[in-house]
């Protein structure tokens, strides 16, 4: 396995490992101080646990399996031929063909959410989809991402359903992957594009940034989270950013984790809105707005 991992390191173009491109001040002090490290469970073990727990907690008595499973991941499964999406499909008994989105890091969940929304709009037989994000970083891959952040292990899941009753409605989702002038694996966060995508999502939802009840940035770097939210004229005092230094950045599982923790701690009222935004590590940008419908 190690030789295969070494190949992937060799295939990266030569680059300064500490190089991070962004348009604001240094962020070293705003990085996570500790990261969650999973020593025992495989990536798909963690994904399986959160998937089963999410299905167990799902409202409704019939406990039907999800129609579709989509996995979001960036890191490798230690069992090299195992399909995490296939495993969840098998364990949950989902009907649709399982697959995974990759290469978008923190923006993966947003593309999955967009995909699920489109699938439900196109196919009235599709009633539910489970989106699962999971990451586990093993040597020789570094957890340190330049001076921007440090990567932690973890998994989270969300069940998206076609329902009329109380719940969070997906108003709009946008994902953008701006082309970069130079082919480089350097970490790059494009703040102007992030601000643009956040503005576009608000506009499509016919909302002013100040009408957002909770702003949920990626738990990647405190300074970045504050800068982008402020530049997008979002109400930063409504920013959900708990204990930013204790688990590290969960990458493809980050937005799902943030959303899960937020939903555990609030009692929303009709019409309240959550805005989530995320960045990938190659300037990918994503934003989604959810609105609570109490009846």
């Amino acid at each position, binding site marked *: 396995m190690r030789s295969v991992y070494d190949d992937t390191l060799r295939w990266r173009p030569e680059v300064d490992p500490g190089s991070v491109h962004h348009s604001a001040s240094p962020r070293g002090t705003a990085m996570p101080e500790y990261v969650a490290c999973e020593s025992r469970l495989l990536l798909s073990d963690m994904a399986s646990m959160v998937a089963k727990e999410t299905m167990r907690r799902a409202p409704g008595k019939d406990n039907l399996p999800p129609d579709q499973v989509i996995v979001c991941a960036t890191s490798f499964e230690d069992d090299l031929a195992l399909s995490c999406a296939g495993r969840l499909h098998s364990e949950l008994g989902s009907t649709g063909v399982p697959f995974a989105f990759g*290469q978008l890091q923190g923006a993966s969940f947003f593309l999955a959410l967009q995909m699920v929304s489109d699938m439900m709009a196109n196919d009235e037989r599709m009633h539910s989809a489970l989106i699962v994000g999971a990451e586990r970083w093993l040597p020789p891959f570094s957890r340190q991402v330049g001076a921007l952040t440090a990567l932690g292990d973890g998994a989270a899941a969300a069940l998206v359903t076609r329902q009329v009753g109380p719940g969070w409605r997906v108003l709009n989702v946008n994902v953008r992957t701006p082309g970069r002038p130079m*082919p480089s694996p350097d970490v790059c966060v494009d703040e102007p594009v992030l601000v643009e995508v956040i503005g576009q999502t608000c506009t499509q939802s016919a909302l002013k940034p100040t009408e957002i009840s909770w702003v949920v940035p990626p738990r990647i770097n405190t300074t970045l989270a504050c800068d982008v939210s402020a530049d997008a004229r979002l109400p930063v005092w409504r920013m959900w950013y708990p204990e930013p230094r204790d688990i590290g950045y969960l990458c493809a599982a980050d937005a799902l984790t943030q959303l899960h923790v937020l939903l555990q701690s609030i009692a929303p009222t009709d019409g309240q809105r959550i805005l989530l935004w995320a960045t990938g590590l190659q300037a990918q940008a994503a934003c989604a707005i959810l609105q609570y419908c109490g009846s």
Partner: protein
Amino acid sequence: MPAPAHDPVLSLSGVAFSLPAQTVDAHTWARRCGFPEARASALLENGVQRFHDAVANSPVALACEAVSALLERTGTSRVSVDALIYTHTIQSSVMAPPAGTAAFVQSRMGLDRALAFSVMQQNCVSPMAAIRVLRVLTIAGRPIQRAIVVCADVMGSGCDHLRAIQDLALHSDGACALLLERGGGHNGIVGLHLYTDGRYFRGTDDDLQPIPDDRYYWSAFATMRAALRQAGLRGSELAHVLPHHVNLPGWSRLMTMLSVPQERLYTANFSRLGHVFGADPFINLHTAPRGQPGSCSLLFSSGLAGCFGAMVIRH
């Protein structure tokens, strides 16, 4: 020939592929892996002669070569590409995460407007799964007129002995790029069906050998039949069946099950290219004699982890 049931949402407008120059024959491979000569003989009896060997060099470089060739051959403007999907069978056929392989290919190819990401975990069916993702996004009205799907895989260092699928195939390193365009141009996609047998999600056993599938023929047949039904076709109406390069003897049985005359199975690349992961049926589409306008061909892939995919295109 009855008209296809549905107007195509997407067309497969172009194909280009890139294979490493070095080829290795079955006997040489068996010798260098320390296998008995009988192993090579068994492969040869099943129509497996050789494979292309990248010597563990980058699959991403092969992907870029394939995309570049596709853009050149089709005369596609780089700024007109709205989506780029990178797919792979082996999860490590990417640059070390969190480096972005899709972003790298996008940047290197100048596809600045494209939404770049990857679809994975459908193994050799991932290119078809990516086409399905594109189809959903297109039907939903996303602004996608033109997209590229590229699949790329290389057997990693120390994995040469794992190239064989029993005695039925030898994996070949390579990449293949597909140009998908909205609407029903030539090679309109009129059927696309995927199936996953969840029992095989692990893919390989403790010795990293593929787990035999006791329902392989039925799953393969049922997947192809479903795609044909979507297209409103009978097997006997197909111009070509464009297979993956695995289990050539078994294809005879599948052709009988599908009621397709055996001579319509396109096998010209089977022995000389090896099993280029998810690329096989698309390479075959590119090199097979062009079907008469209005005729249809069936593409098929299956992969580790119980993945099956079939696609019908109208020429």
